[in-house]
């Protein structure tokens, strides 16, 4: 009699733990999906912003046609790659977006060379918008990567991994920097220290 009760209690604990592990995994899965959607939303915002930016500076920067065209082209490619966005097709999207990021940073460098252009209120505002958009994109990636890492860790950890199959959990791909050029952070050393 006592043995049966103990057995039942153990069984109940196991079942309760299973339910909470399952729910936790589902919760994280949805959070990961949602975080991915957020990146998408922010990328769209960037795509919509670029034509405005280019229009605002086109007249003043006629001689920098090449830079502008590079931005527009990269933007169109990114829009095309983003059209079939899904966590699976992430590589393609990431490549196109990274190219756009690179084109935009070249563009920013060019704008910095024309102080009178920067002084125009319109361009100043657009630059703030651009900064904000770039931040939003990187923060949404960061949020996605954090959530996805959490989700992946949960799936692999014991004993939650026993329930990963039931919850149909599969590892989520992280958003990584693929472009070697972007990875190389320029090192600026102003410390005046003798090199070790």
């Amino acid at each position, binding site marked *: 009699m006592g043995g049966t009760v103990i057995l039942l209690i153990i069984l109940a604990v196991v079942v309760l733990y299973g339910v909470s592990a399952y729910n936790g995994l589902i919760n994280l899965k949805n*959070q990961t999906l949602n*975080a991915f959607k*957020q990146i998408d939303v*922010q990328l769209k915002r960037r795509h919509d912003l670029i034509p405005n930016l280019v229009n605002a500076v086109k007249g003043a920067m006629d001689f920098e046609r090449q830079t502008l065209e590079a931005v527009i082209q990269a933007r169109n490619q990114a829009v095309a790659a983003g059209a079939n966005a899904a966590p699976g097709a992430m590589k393609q999207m990431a490549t196109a977006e990274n190219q756009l990021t690179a084109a935009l940073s070249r563009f920013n460098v060019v704008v910095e060379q024309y102080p009178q252009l920067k002084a125009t209120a319109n361009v*100043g*505002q657009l630059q*703030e*918008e651009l*900064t*904000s958009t770039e*931040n*939003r994109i990187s*923060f*949404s990636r*960061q*949020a996605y990567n*954090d*959530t996805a*890492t*959490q989700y992946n*860790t949960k799936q692999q950890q014991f004993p939650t991994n026993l329930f990963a199959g039931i919850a149909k959990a599969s590892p989520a791909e992280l958003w990584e920097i693929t472009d070697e050029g972007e990875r190389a952070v320029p090192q600026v*050393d102003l*410390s005046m*220290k003798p090199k*070790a």
Partner: protein
Amino acid sequence: MTDDTSLNLFQQQEANRRRTVILVIGFVLFFAWLGFGGDFIYYLATSDAGPETYHHTFPWFGLVMTAIGAGIARYGFATGPNKVLWSTGAREVVEPATDKERQLVNVVEEMAIAAGIPRPRIWIVPDADPNAFATGLDQGHSHIAVTQGLLDMCSRDELQAVIAHELGHVKNLDVRLMTTLAALVGAVALMHDGVGRLMRGGFRLGGGGGGGGSRGGGKKGGLGQLAIILLVLWVITWILAPIISQFLAMAVSRKREYLADAMGAQFTRNPMALATALQKIESADAPTSSIKRGAAHLCIADPLGRRMNLHEGGMANLLATHPPMAARIARLKGMAYQRLKAEGQFPAT
């Protein structure tokens, strides 16, 4: 670090929900004690009086006070965020008018994305001293307020760091507990002032009657003593209520600042920006005059600029609402150092 804080996050949210419930229950119980305690004392005082005089047998005070307490708690909980914002004279930023306001709106949106919560409503407090606070009851209905001084003084990165700190409070539901506390502390202070005045009048009236009661109660000395002990306790509770609620507000907010600093650093991945922002806030040592005592524990830095906040331990542990700024900055610099070391970017010395 990510995994650790996120696991803690869930516990933090649960703990904050639970503490809010305990706080509200405690508040109502406090009112019940004031009411029923009064009833019981009145009952003891009138039980041995003659048959023709009034016998206090039905606990009217208790029922009414409990109802009032529950009503205030309910009202305070529902209107807490608005009350806090109203008390600071903040105005909402709906359409950003200046470049700085546009930047603020952008920064808040960026950090909301990083924190993975809906964008809070944004308010500006017209005060030249840099400070910021967050209020609200849950992640979906939160408010962030910064002073004009903070907006003018901080760079974009520093503003971002301060907002990230505040969103840390929002995300782990500190705002729920701290806003409820602000509303209830305010209610206790108000009630104490109001009823205190009534009671002083009441004692003068009741003086003669009380004297008669103690003469008549000679044969039932035990009851009379009990009534006196209760009366003393009861009066002490009345006197201490606002002090206790102040202590509560202080104790609740100190540990949370470190945690919100850490969460802010996690959102921005830039602990140094928060460190420099805190340094700027600290060096502008004028008190934030628009933010009153009742909302002090909500702010990123003590708006009253109390010296207590410079130390840790001893009296400061009782009286300070915020941990010492130097300790917070040191912790953030430690985080920045860890980050550089982890990335292998720390310059060789």
